[in-house]
Structure formats: C-alpha cells, structure tokens
C-alpha cells in the first residue's frame, strides 16, 4: 500500500517524525515548534489594522513585530499539511455541529488558549518542544494538563464515547 495514501500512520512513526521535525526547526529557524502565540499574532494583525495606537501601547502585542513571522507561516502550513493529508488519505471532512457542541467548542477553545498564554505555551511549545529540552516548565505543564484533563474527561465525557 502506498504510504502517502494510507489512512493512518503508526503513532510511533508520527512521534519520531515530529521529533526529527523539531531538529529541523531548531537548526533551520532557530525556533522550537509552537502554535499558541500565533493566535496572539493574529489578534495583533487585526487590531493593528483598526487601532494601531492601541497595539503600540500594549507591549504584549507590540513586542511581536514582525507579526507575520516564521511561526505564523508555520500555522498556515499546518492547515495546508493537514488538508493535504486528509485528502490523500480520504479522511476528515466537515460533520454538522450541534448547538450544544458549538458552545462547548468555543468555550473549550477560549479556556485552552487562555491557559496556554498564562503558562507561556501549549502542547507543542511546552509539551513537546519544552519537554524535549528537559525544561522544568514543559514537564510541569505536561503533568498539569493530564491532571485536569483526566478529571474533566471522567466528569463530563465518560458517557459520551
């Protein structure tokens, strides 16, 4: 079977691939893999178009210049890569979203990114890139998401799956 069109790859192969991709990112871009700060970059771009003074007066946004950087491009590439993979493997696709699920997704996304920015990274930036450098911050984050994630899952998701 053609490896490019097989629906799934072994999680070990995918993990090793992400590890090697980390080497490439460190070496080629002087930058670890990370995603969550790009959401702030997106906010900076939009606010800069409508209220540039406010962005200039908000160090958390102003310090991100140039807004459209390697990491921003990484996230655009991520959308395209996942799209190409799903097309080649004939998986994915849009299922309709029930109203309750829609609110759950928006609120979940809000908590996810608020938590990531407070902690200073997400599953990629802390969980993988931080942990692989043996950063104390990465391992503390990794352990904490499992504690609250398991508690939440056993409380509200147990019956769903």
């Amino acid at each position, binding site marked *: 079977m053609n490896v490019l069109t097989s629906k799934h790859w072994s999680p070990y192969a995918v993990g090793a691939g992400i590890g090697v991709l980390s080497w490439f990112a460190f070496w080629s871009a002087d930058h670890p893999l990370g995603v969550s700060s790009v959401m702030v970059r997106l906010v900076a771009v939009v606010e800069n178009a409508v209220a540039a003074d406010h962005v200039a007066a908000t160090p958390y946004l102003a310090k991100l210049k140039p807004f459209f950087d390697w990491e921003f491009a990484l996230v655009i590439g991520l959308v395209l890569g996942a799209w190409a993979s799903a097309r080649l493997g004939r998986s994915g696709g849009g299922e309709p979203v029930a109203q309750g699920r829609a609110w759950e997704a928006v609120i979940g996304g809000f908590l996810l990114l608020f938590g990531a920015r407070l902690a200073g990274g997400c599953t990629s930036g802390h969980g993988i890139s931080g942990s692989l450098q043996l950063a104390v911050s990465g391992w503390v984050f990794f352990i904490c998401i499992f504690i609250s994630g398991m508690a939440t899952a*056993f409380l509200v998701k147990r019956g769903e799956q």
Partner: protein
Amino acid sequence: MFDTVPRILLGLLTGFLFGFLLQRGRVSDRRVIVGQFLLRDFTVMKVMLTAIVVGGAGVYAMHAAGLTKLFVKPAQMAAVPVGGLIFGVGMVLLGYCPGTAVAAAGEGKRDAWLGLAGMVLAAAVFAELAAGFSKSIMAWANLGPVTLTDVTGVSAWVWLGGLGLAALLLFRWLERREEHS
C-alpha cells in the same frame, strides 16, 4: 509586518510537514484526544513521548556540536501549573489542543473552526490582561529558564536515556495490553 522570505518559506514547509504528521497520526481526531484522557486510547501519549525522546536526543546532540541553541521557557511555578490546569479543561471540552485544532480545521472539521474562534477571543482578552499578569502571577515563584539537569545535577543524557527506557517499557506494556483486548 513581515519576516524575511526564506523564513516564511521555512515556516510554511515545517508547518506543512507538522500538519501532515498530526493528521496521519490521528491526533486531529477529537475522539482520540478525549480517549487519551479517559485512558482508553494511548495514541496521544505514544506520539508525544516518542517525539520528546527522539527530538531531545537530536536537539541535545546538535547543541553539543554547536549547531543550535536551546530555547528553554522560564519555570514560572505559579503561572505554568495554573495555565496548564485551565488548558487541560479546555483541551477536553474542545477535544483538540491548539496545534491539533488548526490541523482539524485544515481537514474541514467545523467544531475545530469554532474552537479557533474561542482561541482568538481568548488571545485578545489575554493581551489586555498580560501587563497585570506579568507583574503578578507570572512573576511569582519564577525559577527562570531551568532544565531538569539544572535542578537535579543529573546529565541531560541520563535523563533522556531514562525517559527513553521508561517510554519503551510503557509502549511494550500498552501494545501487549492492546493485543489482548
């Protein structure tokens, strides 16, 4: 506004490969992610631990050869755990983390697009509060950019070797258990 063209192209290429890997690894499927937190599906753990051990070995080898710096984030022992605990709740409710939500959005999953809307909203709110947080919770108990080697005195290679061995034992146990079920 824009970074240099070579860096933009490198970012696009790296992201493309990252998205391809996440989608093929099934971690852009929210049943797989929620299944991990319910301890029913260990795909997320297999992907992450393998990435950490393989990535860590290469990055530390490149660092020893002078080919890369390390980019260790500060161990803010109040903000990181609190942020992580909030993140875990969000990850289970949404069913994705930021990277896998972007991948799932690329696949066309509509709940992932809604999750991204919530994320952008949180980013806008956080940007307004960041100055206050940086003087309070993010400054509390900040140990700086320390690694496990810094705090224990045990070499990075011993840590990575130990992690690799622990991961192999866990994977062997998981594969045997999955064979029987």
